[in-house]
């Protein structure tokens, strides 16, 4: 084979010398290294009791946001559903009626909003797509349930609770 570049460096494949052939040095060296590690600080954390700090941009389960006055921000524009590569988001829009201004921020809102958490791949595109700051990925992860249906999160699971209101989301 002629060389393609002048940057090749052969790896070190010397045959074993007499000392190395005696097995024992290798074994003792290995033991010394493992022994040293016994006295090192533990590298693991005891997960369910202890949790590690996530980065602030961690991509976990989604929430739907409210504005400062507690109104739903989502206007059911559907951009998040378009941006979703896993086609996990469905929604139904409805028009805000007079007298509901304290509930919804815009004239149009999502009457139904569902994310199928079994389809979602937590790519974060929905958060990036939302022009209303309505959907965010949080640090919650690893949801669990015995029923498949429980993984289709509706609005009551996704919306962050109003202050004082109990959360309905079993995971939160």
């Amino acid at each position, binding site marked *: 084979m002629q060389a393609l570049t002048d940057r090749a460096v052969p790896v070190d494949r010397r045959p074993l010398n007499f000392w190395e*052939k005696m097995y024992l040095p290798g074994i003792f060296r290995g033991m010394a290294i493992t022994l040293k590690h016994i006295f090192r600080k533990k590298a693991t954390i005891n997960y369910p009791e202890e949790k590690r700090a996530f980065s602030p941009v*961690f991509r976990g389960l989604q929430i739907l946001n409210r504005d400062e006055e507690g109104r739903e921000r989502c206007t059911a524009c559907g951009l998040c559903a378009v941006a979703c590569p896993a086609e996990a988001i469905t929604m139904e829009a409805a028009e805000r009626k007079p007298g509901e201004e304290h509930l919804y921020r815009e004239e149009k809102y999502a009457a139904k909003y569902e994310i199928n958490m079994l389809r979602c791949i937590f790519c974060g595109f929905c958060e990036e797509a939302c022009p209303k700051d309505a959907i965010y990925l949080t640090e919650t992860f690893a949801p669990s349930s015995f029923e498949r249906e429980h993984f289709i999160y509706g609005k009551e699971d996704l919306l962050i609770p109003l202050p004082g209101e109990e959360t309905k989301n079993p995971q939160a």
Partner: protein
Amino acid sequence: MTEKHIQLRQDSLQKETTTLNLGPTHPVTHGVFQNILEMDGERVVGATSTVGYIHRAFEKLAERRPFYQITPLTDRMNYCSSPINNIGWHLTIEKLLGLRVPKRVDYMRVIIMELARISDHLICNSVVGVDSGAYSGFLYLMQYRELIYEIYEEICGSRLTTNIGRIGGFERNFNDKVFSKLDKFLAEYPGVLAEFERLFNRNRIFMERTIGAGPISAERALNYSFTGPNLRAAGVDYDVRVSQPYSSYEEFDLKIPVGKTGDCYDRFLVRNQEMWESMSLIRQALQKMEKEPADIFHADAPAYYLAPKQDVYTKMEALIYHFKIIMGEIDAPVGEVYQAVEGANGELGFYLISDGGRTPYRLHFRRPCFIYYQAYPELVHNALLSDAVICLSSLNLIAGELDA
């Protein structure tokens, strides 16, 4: 034992070989794929490799997705080094669009890709250790993969399926935490890797297990169109980063470690050496980055790169582009591009045909593992079963890339 016995039916009385299923869910296959081995005692006399257990039809799926939504699909090919796949895809689109990215973005990409290469090689090499009976090396290296994943998490928010970067740059700039974690990694990992090498490289037990196991000559390797560390272990100094540089790799000082015989020991040494090279590349990239303005992390291309949210709320133009990009309405030219990157496992190619629509017309990913797997029966012919196992892990076959 003659070949004839392999052809005989399972229940035939003349049959003197045993059929052994290695996989699809065997602990040593490290992924979902099957090898049907024909054994004469401990010796492998025939092997059939099967794929298709996790076929997900990425290319077909991609034909229905706007360009930016294909990035999460590439995550799932070689999931040990998904950032390389992501960035390779971005480079492909940028080539199609004729988009130039600033130098600083190139260097940031080099840092991320080399981190991914290290995390991939450290898995492969420590798993070779596990399969040859040395478990502790795996545990020591694995702690540092965690650190690499934390760096990804700081930038993109995820650890394994990263979906890192965007067309034209990165989704966010590297923050101080990223730099301090990079410094920590560069300070501590050399010691750990040196210790790992002390455990393995000159250990007679390990050498005798791996030397001569699963060798392949340079010529056979080229015939199979091997690339990456597995080809370099056979003695060919082919590296996409040098032969078709992308992302400013031509500015970097890079050595190509090559082996001689292409056996498991060579592959192991080449990967170890490449980790040292990658660390030096990260250092060089950090140095080069210092000379560039620190606030640039994406190209100035409003038609392809999403504007910051503040602008979307306040400026009409940004809002229009925001909607256009999210809906996938980018003006892709008609054309045909091939972009290769040096994936952790070999040449990872993206062959894209665009008809000017919002999705690719046709797309093909060149997956290196798929090619190595074709050579597996030849590599393990006449080997012992335990060598076949080491050979499997030292080729670094990742199941996500096997199904094409």
